[in-house]
């Protein structure tokens, strides 16, 4: 064995103190149950948050649909107001006079 390796091994603390804390089967069960409960609570908390966001998303989606429907209604109204028939019956059009003669600049 090489001298360096031997020295390293000699310097190692090979003695270990025995652990005084001992967990009986009942305590272990309780600990496990507690851990599971904490995890379950965390999970439920996240799920609730997700669901809350889902509702919010649904609400906003409905609001977007409402706004789009309103936009479409306004488009239709604008279309009606700008239609040939509406333009023809407008006060501006009624005040116009027909063209009598067209002259072209050459």
């Amino acid at each position: 064995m090489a001298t360096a390796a031997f020295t390293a091994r000699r310097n190692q603390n090979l003695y270990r103190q025995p652990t005084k804390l001992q967990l009986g089967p009942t305590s272990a069960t309780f600990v496990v149950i507690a851990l599971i409960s904490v995890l379950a609570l965390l999970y439920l908390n996240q799920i609730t948050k997700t669901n809350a966001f889902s509702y919010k998303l649904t609400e906003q989606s409905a609001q977007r649909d409402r706004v789009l429907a309103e936009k479409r209604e306004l488009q239709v109204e604008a279309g009606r107001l700008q239609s040939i028939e509406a333009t023809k019956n407008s006060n501006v059009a009624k005040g116009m006079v027909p063209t009598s003669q067209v002259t072209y600049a050459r």
Partner: protein
Amino acid sequence: MARISDTITQRRRLGYFSVILVVFGAVLVARLFYLQIVRHDHYVAQASAEHTRKYEVPARRGELFLRDGEGTTPIALNQTLKLIYADPRLVDNKEKTAEKLSFVLAMSKDELIKRLNRGIEYTVLAERVPRETAEKVAKLDLKGVGLVNRDYRTYPEGQLAAQTVGFVNADFVGQYGIEGYLNEQLAGKPGQLAAKTDAHGVPIATADNISKLPEDGKSYVLTIDRNIQAKVEQELKTHIEAVRAKSGSIVVMDPWTGEIKAMANFPTFDPNTYSQVSDYSVFVNQAVASQFEPGSGVKAFTLAAGLDQGKVTPDTTYDDPGCNRVDDRTICNAAGDKAGRGKTMTVVLRDSLNTGVMHVLRLLGGDVNKINLVGKKILYEYFTHKHFGFGERTGIEQANEAPGVVKEPSNASGNNTTYANMTFGQGMSVTMVQMVAAMAAIANGGTWYQPRVVDAVIGSDDEPQKLPAKAVREGIISKKTATDLSQMLTVVVERGSGFRAKIPGYTNQIAGKTGTAQVPRPDGQGYYADRTIGTFVGFAPVSNPRFVLMVRINEPKINGYAEVTTVPAFRTICDWLFKYYGIPPTS
């Protein structure tokens, strides 16, 4: 001794109890195994069905726009409005309910009571109810009365281009016009949503939801120019009333692209209230779907064949006998046209001489004395798919397009008499859109463009993508033929049957041909004596054609040929188009 006996009994009882417990436990385990393992899929599906619902997500129908100068204007839009319905069984007091609703809906109370008494479980009280009104109805909180969203198609321009656009029926299916022809593309494809729902059945947005997005329908910009369309419709109505005609149609087309600028029919209808129409024939775009005997307008195309084949020139002369014997029939010029010697082909067109175009048919066959199969075959080719395209659909984006009829020369029906008649537009049938496309080929120097009403498709980025013109056949007649024929057609307007189309300042700039056709009896026994169809098809300005215009007036009640019944309408529109396009006078 007794204690030993008691102990044995207790142990036996405990034994029995243990066995019962074990059996009970085994049954429970077996049942659980059955439910959880064997029937797992079934119960998962059942649970899922209770808190998951499937919905069809409707696709948004594409919208339609018209050209309006450089921009566009809507002609067919979608609108989500409310439908108000009632379950008459649940309405406690119909009188009171009707009274309350009549104030909000601005409908008569009696009408509402009538509607409430009409259905057993479901009756529609009002349709197309705007959002504000619907909110007022909802606030009334009437028992047995409900509101539901409904998509409606709205046509903001009302009657404008009604037959060209068509309409969407109660099932949201396109009918007639472009709504019918492009229904699939306009409708799109519905999506699907399988979503978890809350206690009220409202879908919740979760990661587990399965959704297939709907594919919205395509929107289109039409080639129809709103201003030309409106003017044409107005003039058509005025003119039909003036000549007391049954109906009529007008088509305006760009000869260089095949774009239809206006396509009008009268009588017409409002697609917003199509359900109130009792005469369904007004839904049909007569310019595309109605095939008719065109009469003398076809002489231009017979002469095109003669000129293009080099058999005649504008100055070629013939001796007009007034009548021609064809097999066992005698065919004459129209009443009043006298026989004469040395009439030119220009005069044939100017005076609309039937004997002149029959002479061209004989020349096409190489025998000046009789009509033969060679001549008929050449004429057939010029009239049909190789040249002017009669007898087959043009492919315009319109529902119910008619192909027209051109009889084949080799059939018994395509005999000499039929072909003699065909040279001046009888014994064959065409549509207006075919006539306009054929005349456009003369105007533009020999290219047959497919007539079209779709100018552009609007993509997902809302930007219209313009569609190219479809030059289906080039060189169907030579440029010289087109030029000669154009000049001959201007003579028709300057000194012939189309003289009423003359416009001061535009000398030799308007080309056209009249046609007065008789209406055949449906039983095949000849023609009605008192019913005619007047047509005038032409283009202008001849030096650089901007438009082809055709007017058709059905069964006018005033006496006279198309020059009286139809040409005045052509002139009015032509004059207006010169101003609209800014075409200055040449003289």
